[in-house]
């Protein structure tokens, strides 16, 4: 099995073993063992819910930083639309934000928002060509992984089209190669990312071999540097090209509105997404053409690696796009039509299911385990307290069946065990033979002096 790269990792020193994260994790990928959280590689989808919830900041996203830029002859920044949402103010503009990125040392910028327009139109083409309903966007990498591991039956509902950042990197690099005569490997394309899932998606893509993106730098890393340069960053004509349609991809509903097929909806927040996916699994929502699913509340503006409050970010995007055209440029649309025919937007391979629920590869062993599981669940208190280090009694039962935990990990089972052990000890103590018992007692509950109970 190939080793998994994960952006989300544990800072062991900071972890107090408090069990808050294990309950929040949408794939039950965290256990607390020996007083520290542990992330189960096969289950983790890098959504970053644990980063958001951990009160001790013991979860961290591994990502790239500016030092990587020096490895390339020419660098291009790919700012996520949600990056713009971090900035506000009377004379703030997207053009100034892009100029700011150039002042931070990038040689060029390419808006992911522009690629998002391409992807919107490509998705629309795909929906028209497919009979599967509902089709689900694959733009949010945490959702793609969630479906692989928890909803494996739904992988063929995912739209096999590249995410905007990958299209952005390719468009940017191809343009630079043409214009400056550089080779592909001489150009470094860096995504300014709102989330760890994108970091993982770039390092370990699903549906294609190698990403055109060379690194992902968190918005949180870029933000402080931006504050320093922004006062000197001036409005620069020609830098800003995307319409508000592409920029609005930075927040929930932006994608769904850009795709603009008749019956569509947007769901944000991973736990809400799970509710919808559960309904799709039993055949509902088949009358919906397209579903935008965002792991983060509010969409990418709510990403774990953003600085601004997502509600504030939402409004900032509104203000920054007020004077932009509200329709995709017809030239872009014409280009998409041409590239669509070439298969430019399609993923190279299928998105494979990767179920984490299977108890055993062998069916009869799996059945035995299910029977044991049912018995174990009955035995546990059903309080889902998490003290055992597993997220719920059901999860503990699964861990026990898989040999990863024992019944004694449950504090209630343990207490009962200790209690009956204590009672047994007491009973044994009372059964001390008369010959060595020399203490007179008038306690009527003690056994008769000959050490036997009648």
């Amino acid at each position: 099995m190939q080793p998994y790269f994960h952006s989300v990792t544990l800072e062991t020193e900071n972890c107090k073993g408090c069990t808050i994260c294990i309950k929040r994790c949408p794939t039950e990928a965290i256990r607390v063992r020996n007083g520290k959280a542990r992330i189960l590689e096969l289950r983790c989808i890098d959504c970053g819910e644990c980063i958001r919830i951990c009160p001790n900041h013991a979860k961290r996203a591994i990502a790239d930083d500016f030092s990587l830029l020096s490895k390339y002859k020419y660098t291009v920044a790919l700012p996520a639309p949600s990056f713009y949402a971090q900035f506000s103010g009377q004379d703030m503009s997207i053009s100034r934000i892009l100029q700011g990125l150039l002042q931070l040392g990038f040689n060029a910028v390419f808006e992911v928002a522009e690629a998002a327009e391409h992807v919107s139109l490509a998705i629309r083409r795909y929906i028209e060509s497919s009979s599967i309903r509902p089709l689900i966007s694959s733009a949010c990498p945490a959702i793609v992984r969630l479906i692989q591991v928890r909803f494996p039956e739904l992988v063929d509902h995912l739209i096999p089209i590249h995410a905007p950042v990958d299209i952005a990197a390719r468009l940017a690099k191809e343009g630079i190669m043409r214009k400056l005569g550089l080779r592909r490997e001489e150009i470094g394309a860096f995504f300014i990312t709102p989330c760890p899932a994108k970091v993982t998606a770039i390092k370990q893509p699903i549906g294609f071999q190698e990403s055109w993106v060379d690194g992902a730098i968190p918005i949180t890393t870029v933000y402080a540097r931006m504050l320093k340069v922004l006062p000197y960053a001036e409005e620069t004509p020609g830098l800003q090209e995307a319409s508000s349609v592409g920029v609005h991809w930075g927040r929930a509903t932006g994608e769904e509105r850009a795709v603009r097929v008749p019956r569509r909806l947007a769901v944000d927040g991973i736990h809400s997404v799970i509710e919808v996916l559960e309904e799709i699994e039993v055949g509902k929502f088949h009358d919906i053409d397209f579903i935008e699913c965002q792991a983060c509340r509010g969409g990418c503006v709510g990403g774990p690696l953003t600085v601004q409050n997502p509600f504030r970010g939402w409004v900032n995007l509104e203000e920054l796009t007020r004077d932009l055209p509200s329709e995709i440029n017809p030239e872009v649309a014409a280009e998409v039509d041409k590239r669509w025919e070439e298969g430019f937007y399609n993923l190279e391979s299928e998105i494979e299911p990767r179920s984490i629920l299977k108890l055993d590869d062998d069916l009869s062993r799996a059945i035995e385990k299910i029977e044991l599981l049912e018995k174990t669940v009955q035995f546990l208190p059903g309080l889902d307290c998490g003290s055992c280090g597993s997220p719920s009694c059901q999860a503990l039962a699964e861990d026990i069946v898989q040999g990863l935990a024992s019944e004694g990990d449950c504090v209630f089972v343990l207490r009962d065990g200790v209690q009956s052990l204590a009672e047994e000890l007491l009973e044994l103590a009372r059964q001390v033979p008369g010959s060595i018992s020399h203490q007179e007692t008038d306690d009527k509950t003690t056994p008769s002096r000959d050490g036997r109970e009648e």
Partner: protein
Amino acid sequence: MPDVKDVGALMSVTYDIAARDFVRAGEAANKLKRLLQQLGLDPAVIRRAAIAAYEAEMNIVIHSYGGQIKVDITPESIEIFCEDSGPGIPDIEKALQEGYSTASEEIREMGFGAGMGLPNIQRSADEFRIESTVGRGTSLQVTILHEAGE
């Protein structure tokens, strides 16, 4: 809690379904789905079984006075047996037509009763049998083969 036991089949589970309980409606199908996932069955087979079980469960909730769904997992197939006591179906042929429904206005307002239940079950099944006695109730059997051509 489903009652797990072996009876000829590799495994057998039974779910009790209460009439008109829209809060719990769908729970049995969800439990079955999770069970099949734990068994590691083919995702496409799980999907069809989940859809059939869900629609059957909803039919019992909406139309009957209560019933049971029993599922046998055999080496070849998933067998779903549904039985309810209720008004029964006077015209089964009509009930199998897409869009035909006898659900009340109230039920439709809740977003159910679109007349797709039985047709969806039939579409998900490799074998499908239905029997109904007016005034007594309805029973159906759905077979989904582990390795089936659609």
